[in-house]
C-alpha cells in the first residue's frame, strides 16, 4: 500500500542588490533579517522568529544507494548566516548565496500551491522591508527562476515521503521517465541555452530553465555534475520506515497550475511505484541527452529511444503514465496524495495539459509557464522584429520571474489562480493543520521564548531550570491539529505542554 505523500518544496531565489555593493550573501541576510525585524516591529510579536535551526538531523552525505560520504559533505552549519523558522512551519535562510525558503510539510499538492504562493508573499514583503532599511537609491530584487543565463543555476527542489521498503533502484528506474517527460508541462521556459557548445542559433527558446545543467543520471551531488535522480538520503523522519525523495530536476513555477501538476503528478507516480503498478518500462536509453532533447523540442513531436529499443515522444510517455494513473485511481483510490477530490483534480488537469500540448497550445497560455512566456516573447518579437538573441527578449525572460508585482511579467500574462488570496495570506503566518508542521508552527506562535531550536523532526524547548528538552517528531503526519490542537490550546505554558505530552 502506497504511503501518504507528505510534500515540500524548497526554492532558492535569484537576488540582485541594486545601487550598492553586490554581495549576494550579505544581501540575502539583509533581506531575511529585514523581514524578521518587520514582523517584530509590526506587532506580530508572536510571529517574530528568534528560534535557530537545529543541525542535529542534517546528514547530506548519506546516499540512498547505501553508503555515506559524510566527510565530503559536512552539514552546512552556517551559524553566522540567517536561519529562521517561521510560524507557518517554514524555514527561511541563506543558502550559499541565495535566500531560500522551504515550505512546511504539506499533505497534498493543493496545499503546496498555497504555501509556495505564501513563500512568494514572504519574499515580496522582505523586499519592501529591506528597501525601508537600506539607504536611498539601494534596493534588493528577488527573482523566482533557476538560472542567470550565464551558466549559473540554483534550484527548486521537491520532497516526497516514500516507503523505505521500496528498493531505491526501482524508484530510480521508474521515476526517471517521469522526470524527463513531465518537463513538457512543468517547464518555466528559457530564451537560449547554457549548455556547453550550443548557441541561441541552435536553441532559440527551450521548455525548461534547468535541463542544460544536468550531467548524470543518478548521484548525490546538487551543485555540480547534477543528477536527474538525486540520492540524498536524509528522511527527516523515522529512518526505518521512510525515505524522502529529494528531487532537484524541476523548475520554479510562477503558474499555480504548473506547481500543482509538477508535485501532484509526481506524487501519483511515486504511489504507483510503491504499489508496483507501472507495467511498461519507459526508461530512455540515454537519459541525460533525452532530458535536453525534450526541453529543446518545441514541436513536442520528436521521439527518443527507450532502453527496450522502441521510440516514443515525451507526450506519448506522459499519456501512458496518465492512463496508468487513471486505472490506478479507479482501482486503488488516491488517498495517498491527499484524498479523492484533490487526486481527481490532479488527473483532470493532467489530462487537460496533455490534450492542450497535443492539439491546442493556446489553451495552455494561462496554465503552463513555458507556453505563457513563449506567447509574449513571440508577440514582442514580431511587434519589434527582433531576432532571438536580442537582449530585450533575454530581459523579458528574466523579468517574467521578477517577484515585484510592478515589474513581474508573470503577474501580467493572466495566469489562472487555483487558490484564494485569503488562503495565501493565512499561510504566510499559520501552518498547515494536517502535518507535523502544525505542532512546530503553533508552538512557535504560542511560546517563541521557550523554543530554542527547531528542525524538521524535532523541537528543542528551554523551560528554565532543567536541561533542554527535545521533542521528537519522527512521524510527519503526527502533531496535526486533530492530534494536538486542543492540547496546545489548553496549555498556558511550554512547561505545561511538555508535562502533558509526557503523560
Amino acid at each position: 500500500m502506497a504511503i501518504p505523500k507528505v510534500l515540500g518544496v524548497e526554492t532558492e531565489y535569484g537576488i540582485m542588490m541594486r545601487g550598492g555593493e553586490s554581495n549576494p550573501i550579505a544581501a540575502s541576510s539583509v533581506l531575511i533579517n529585514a523581514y524578521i525585524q518587520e514582523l517584530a516591529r509590526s506587532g506580530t510579536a508572536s510571529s517574530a522568529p528568534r528560534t535557530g535551526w537545529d543541525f542535529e538531523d542534517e546528514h547530506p552525505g548519506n546516499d540512498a544507494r547505501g553508503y555515506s560520504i559524510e566527510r565530503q559533505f559536512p552539514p552546512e552549519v552556517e551559524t553566522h548566516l540567517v536561519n529562521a523558522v517561521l510560524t507557518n512551519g517554514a524555514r527561511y535562510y541563506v543558502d550559499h548565496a541565495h535566500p531560500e525558503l522551504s515550505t512546511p510539510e504539506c499533505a497534498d499538492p493543493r496545499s503546496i500551491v498555497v504555501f509556495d504562493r505564501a513563500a512568494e508573499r514572504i519574499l515580496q514583503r522582505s523586499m519592501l522591508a529591506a528597501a525601508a532599511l537600506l539607504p536611498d537609491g539601494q534596493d534588493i530584487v528577488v527573482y523566482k527562476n533557476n538560472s542567470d543565463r550565464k551558466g549559473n543555476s540554483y534550484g527548486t527542489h521537491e520532497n516526497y515521503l516514500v516507503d523505505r521498503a521500496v528498493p531505491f533502484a526501482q524508484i530510480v528506474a521508474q521515476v526517471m521517465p517521469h522526470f524527463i517527460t513531465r518537463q513538457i508541462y512543468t517547464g518555466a521556459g528559457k530564451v537560449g541555452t547554457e549548455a556547453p557548445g550550443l548557441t541561441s542559433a541552435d536553441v532559440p527558446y527551450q521548455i525548461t530553465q534547468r535541463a542544460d545543467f544536468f550531467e548524470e543520471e543518478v548521484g548525490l551531488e546538487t551543485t555540480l555534475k547534477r543528477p536527474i535522480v538525486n540520492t540524498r538520503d536524509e528522511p527527516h523522519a523515522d529512518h526505518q520506515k521512510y525515505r524522502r525523495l529529494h528531487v532537484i530536476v524541476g523548475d520554479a513555477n510562477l503558474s499555480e497550475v504548473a506547481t500543482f501538476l509538477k508535485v501532484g503528478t509526481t506524487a501519483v507516480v511515486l504511489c504507483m511505484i510503491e504499489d508496483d503498478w507501472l507495467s511498461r518500462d519507459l526508461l530512455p536509453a540515454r537519459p541525460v541527452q533525452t532530458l535536453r532533447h525534450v526541453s529543446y523540442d518545441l514541436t513536442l513531436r520528436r521521439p527518443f529511444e527507450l532502453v527496450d529499443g522502441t521510440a516514443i515522444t515525451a507526450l506519448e510517455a506522459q499519456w501512458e503514465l496518465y492512463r496508468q494513473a487513471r486505472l490506478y485511481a479507479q482501482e486503488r483510490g488516491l488517498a495517498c496524495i491527499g484524498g479523492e477530490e484533490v487526486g481527481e483534480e490532479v488527473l483532470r488537469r493532467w489530462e487537460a495539459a496533455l490534450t492542450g500540448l497535443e492539439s491546442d497550445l493556446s489553451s495552455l497560455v494561462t496554465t503552463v509557464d513555458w507556453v505563457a512566456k513563449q506567447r509574449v516573447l513571440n508577440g514582442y518579437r514580431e511587434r519589434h522584429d527582433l531576432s532571438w538573441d536580442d537582449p530585450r527578449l533575454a530581459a523579458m525572460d528574466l523579468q517574467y520571474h521578477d517577484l515585484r508585482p510592478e515589474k513581474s511579467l508573470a503577474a501580467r500574462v493572466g495566469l489562472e489562480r487555483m487558490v484564494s488570496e485569503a488562503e495565501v495570506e493565512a499561510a504566510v503566518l499559520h501552518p498547515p493543520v494536517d502535518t507535523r508542521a502544525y505542532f512546530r508552527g503553533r508552538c512557535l506562535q504560542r511560546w517563541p521564548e521557550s523554543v530554542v531550536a527547531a528542525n524538521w523532526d524535532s523541537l528543542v524547548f528551554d523551560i528554565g531550570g532543567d536541561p533542554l528538552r527535545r521533542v521528537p517528531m519522527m512521524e510527519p503526519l503526527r502533531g496535526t491539529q486533530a492530534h494536538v490542537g486542543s492540547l496546545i490550546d489548553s496549555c498556558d505554558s511550554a512547561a505545561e505542554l511538555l508535562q502533558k505530552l509526557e503523560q
Partner: protein
Amino acid sequence: MAEREQIKKQAPTKSDEVVEPVPATSESGEKIKGELDDLLDEIDEVLETNAEEFVKSYVQKGGE
C-alpha cells in the same frame, strides 16, 4: 508503430473536433489578438529600460 497508436487511442482525449484551430478572423480571435496587443503595450512600459545592461548585470552564484 502499433504501440503508439494504442497509447493514443486509450488516452481519453476530449474529442477530435477541438483539434481545429479557431480561425483568426473570428470574433474571439480578434479579441485574443487585442488582449495580446494590450499586454505587449504594458510590457513595453515595465520592461527594464536598458535591457542589455540589465541582462549583463544579472549574475548569480550557483546554488543548491
